C-alpha cells in the first residue's frame, strides 16, 4: 500500500510523539536495550512457553493441584494477594475525593493506575487457573449463582475494574489530547469513586468470606466469622503500604517527569500515610485478638500452627504498627518506606496462610500442596508483564505530573 508523503509524515509524527517517546523508531529500539529489559526478556522467554504449555496440556501436567488441593498459588498469591495489594486506588480515592484530603491528591492517579493494573493482572492470572477460562463471562451473562460469595467477587471485581478505568480515563485523554472526553470523565470521577468504595469494601471482604464455607479445612486459628472484616482491614493496610512504596519508587525512577520535585512534600505525605497505616494496623491487631477470644482457640497457640499465627499477628501486624508509629513521631520517612515493604510481606503471608499454609491442615503431609515450578514461573511472568505495562504507561501518560495543558482536577 502506498501512502502519500503527507499522511506518512502525520502518522509517523503521531507515533513518534505518543508511542516512541519523541524518538525515531531506531532510537527508540536502541533505547530499549537496558539491563532491566534483558531480565524481562529472559523471564518472558521461559514464561510464555509455560503459559502455552498450561493452555495446551491443561492443569494436571502444569500444576501440583489435586483433588484435595483444588486451589494453589494462582488463587492464593495472584488473586488474593494481588487484589489486597491493589487496594491503593480505593484507599487514596476515598481520602482525596470523599474526605477531601487535597495534599494526597497527587497520589490519586498513580494509585488508581496501580489498582487498575493490579486487578487486571489478577484476573489474567486467574484465567489460567480456571478449567474453562473461555467461560469467564458465564457468571455475568449465562447463569447466576447468587448464593455464592464467589459470584459477588466476580461481579464486584469486574465492576470495580470499570470504575478504576473511568478514574484513569482523564489521564488517557490528556495523553491523546481529547479535551471534551477528558472533561466528561473528570466529572464521572466522583461517582466512580463512591461506587468503587462500596464495591471495594464488599469484594475485599468477600474474598475472605470465600473461606467461611470451609470451617473444616481452614485451621481454627484462621477460621473466624470475622474473616470478612479481617480481609477488609488488611486490604486497607495493603493499599496504604503499596501506595507508600509505589509513590516513593516512582518518584525516584520517574523523577525526570516531575518539574518541581519536592522531596520534602513527598516525605510529609509518606509520613501521613505511615500514620494511617499504623492506626489501621493497630485496629486490625485488636480485631484479631477479639477474633481469637471469640473463637476461643487459645489452646492451639502452643502448636506449630500456633507459632506461625503468633509470628503473623505479632511480627507482621503489631510490630509494623509500632514501627510506623515510631517513625511518624520521629519524622523518619525512610523508616516508613522500609516498614511498608515489611508490611506487604506480612499481608502476603496472611493470604498464603489462609489459602495454602493453614488450609487443609488436617491432611497428611504427603497429600498437601506445594506449587510446581511452572506455577511459580507463570506467576512471575504475569507480574512482570504487569510491571512492564505500568512502566509503558508511566512513560507516556500524565500520571505523576500535571499535564501542562490542563488545569488541575477540581471537585
Amino acid at each position, binding site marked *: 500500500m502506498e501512502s502519500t508523503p503527507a499522511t506518512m509524515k502525520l502518522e509517523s509524527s503521531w507515533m513518534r510523539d505518543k508511542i516512541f517517546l519523541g524518538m525515531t523508531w531506531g532510537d527508540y529500539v536502541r533505547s530499549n536495550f537496558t539491563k532491566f529489559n534483558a531480565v524481562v526478556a529472559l523471564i518472558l522467554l521461559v514464561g510464555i512457553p509455560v503459559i502455552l504449555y498450561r493452555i495446551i496440556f491443561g492443569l494436571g501436567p502444569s500444576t501440583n493441584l489435586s483433588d484435595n488441593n483444588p486451589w494453589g498459588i494462582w488463587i492464593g498469591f495472584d488473586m488474593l494477594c494481588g487484589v489486597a495489594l491493589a487496594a491503593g486506588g480505593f484507599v487514596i480515592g476515598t481520602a482525596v475525593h470523599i474526605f477531601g484530603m487535597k495534599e494526597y491528591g497527587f497520589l490519586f492517579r498513580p494509585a488508581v493506575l496501580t489498582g487498575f493494573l493490579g486487578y487486571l493482572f489478577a484476573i489474567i492470572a486467574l484465567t489460567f487457573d480456571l478449567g474453562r477460562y473461555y467461560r469467564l463471562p458465564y457468571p455475568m451473562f449465562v447463569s447466576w449463582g447468587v448464593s*455464592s460469595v464467589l459470584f459477588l467477587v466476580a461481579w464486584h471485581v469486574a465492576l470495580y475494574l470499570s470504575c478504576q478505568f473511568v478514574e484513569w480515563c482523564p489521564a488517557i485523554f490528556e495523553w491523546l489530547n481529547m479535551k471534551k472526553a477528558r472533561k466528561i470523565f473528570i466529572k464521572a470521577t466522583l461517582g466512580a469513586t463512591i461506587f468503587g468504595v*462500596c464495591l471495594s469494601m464488599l469484594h475485599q471482604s468477600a474474598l475472605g468470606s470465600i473461606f467461611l464455607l470451609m470451617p473444616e479445612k481452614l485451621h481454627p486459628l484462621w477460621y473466624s466469622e470475622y474473616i470478612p472484616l479481617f480481609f477488609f482491614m488488611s486490604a486497607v493496610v495493603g493499599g496504604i503500604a503499596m501506595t507508600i512504596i509505589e509513590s516513593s519508587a516512582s518518584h525516584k525512577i520517574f523523577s525526570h517527569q516531575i518539574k518541581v520535585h519536592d522531596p520534602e512534600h513527598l516525605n510529609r505525605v509518606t509520613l501521613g500515610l505511615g500514620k494511617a497505616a499504623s492506626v489501621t494496623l493497630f485496629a486490625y491487631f485488636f480485631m484479631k485478638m477479639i477474633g481469637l477470644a471469640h473463637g476461643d482457640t487459645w489452646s492451639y497457640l502452643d502448636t506449630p500452627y500456633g507459632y506461625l499465627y503468633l509470628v503473623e499477628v505479632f511480627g507482621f501486624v503489631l510490630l509494623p504498627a509500632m514501627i510506623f508509629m515510631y517513625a511518624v513521631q520521629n519524622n523518619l520517612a525512610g523508616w516508613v518506606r522500609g516498614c511498608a515493604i515489611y508490611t506487604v510481606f506480612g499481608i502476603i503471608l496472611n493470604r498464603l496462610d489462609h489459602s495454602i499454609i493453614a488450609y487443609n491442615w488436617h491432611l497428611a503431609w504427603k497429600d498437601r500442596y506445594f506449587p510446581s515450578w511452572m506455577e511459580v514461573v507463570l506467576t512471575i511472568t504475569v507480574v512482570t508483564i504487569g510491571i512492564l505495562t505500568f512502566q509503558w504507561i508511566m512513560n507516556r501518560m500524565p500520571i505523576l505530573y500535571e499535564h501542562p495543558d490542563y488545569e488541575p482536577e477540581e471537585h
Partner: protein
Amino acid sequence: MDNSRRNFFRVLAGLGLSASLGGTSIARADGGLLPGYPNQFGVLVDTTVCIGCRRCEWACKEWNKLPDQMDLKEYEKDQSVFQDVRRTHANTYTVVNRFENPRDSSKPIFVKKQCMHCYEPGCASSCFVKAFTKRPIGPVTYDASLCVGCRYCMAACPFDIPAYQYDNPWTPEVTKCTFCFDRISKEGGIPACVSICPVETMTFGKRTDLIDLAHKKIMDNPGRYVNHVYGETEVGGTSWMYLSAVPFDKIGFRTDLGTTPIPTLSKPFLSLVSPVFIVVPALAMGMYSFKKRRDEIEKDEIKKALEKKEGK
C-alpha cells in the same frame, strides 16, 4: 450460630460498615435439624455388613461409563487398592476403603464412600454459576454445561467429594456420584451400586424411613453399633447415612463437622450487600457535601478578608 452472627453484625455496625443491622431479618434456613424435602430418597450404609468386594465400585463405573473399567472378576480380585485409603477421583465416583477393626483385628471394616448428597450442599452454595442442583428427590446433580472450572465446589465440600478432570485441557469437568439420578427418578429404580451389592450393605428408600430403620437397628442390636447415625445431622443432614460398629473417626469419617449446613455460613455476609450499597453512598455523599461546603466557606472568608484589606 445465631449468637455469633449477631456479634458479627455488631462489629460491622460498630465500624460503620452498615447501619444498625442488628435486627434485620435474614432468611432462616439454619437450625440443627432440617426436615428436608419430605419425599427425599436416601441410602443407609451398614458398614458392619460390607465384605469389601468392591462390586459397587464396578457397577458405578459400568453404569456411568467411566474409564479404566475392568472385568468384574479381575476387579474383585484386586486387593492391592486397600493398601491406601483412597478418595473419590475423576474416574471413580465411589471407593471402598479398608480400615483396621479395633475390636477384632482379623475382621477389617470396609467403608464405601461417595457423595453424601447433603440436604443443604456446600458445593451448590459455592458455585457461582449454579452448576449444582439439589433435587427434591434427594440427589445433588452437576451440570457440566455451566461449569467454569473454578473448583470452589471442591474446596467447599466438607466431605472432600468432587474430583476434577485435571488431565483434560479443554473441557474438564467436576465429577461426583450422581445418586444415579437417571435411575431413581424412574418408578422403582434404585442406584446401580445398591442393586449389585451381594450382601445388602445398602438400603435405598425414603430418607425419613431410613432414619427410623437406622435407629431401630441400633436399638435392637446395642452391642453391634455405636449409637450414632452418621449423616442424620452432620452439616444439616445428608441423604446417604451410615451405621458403624466403631466410632466414626476410626473409619475415615470426620466427626468435627458440626450440624450447621455449610451454606448458612456465608449467608450473613451475603445479606450485607444491599445495605452497603445504600449506606455507603449516602455517607460518602454526606462527607463530600460537608467538605465542599467547608471549602466554600473558607474561600468566602478569604475573599472577604481580602476585600476588607483592600477597601480600608
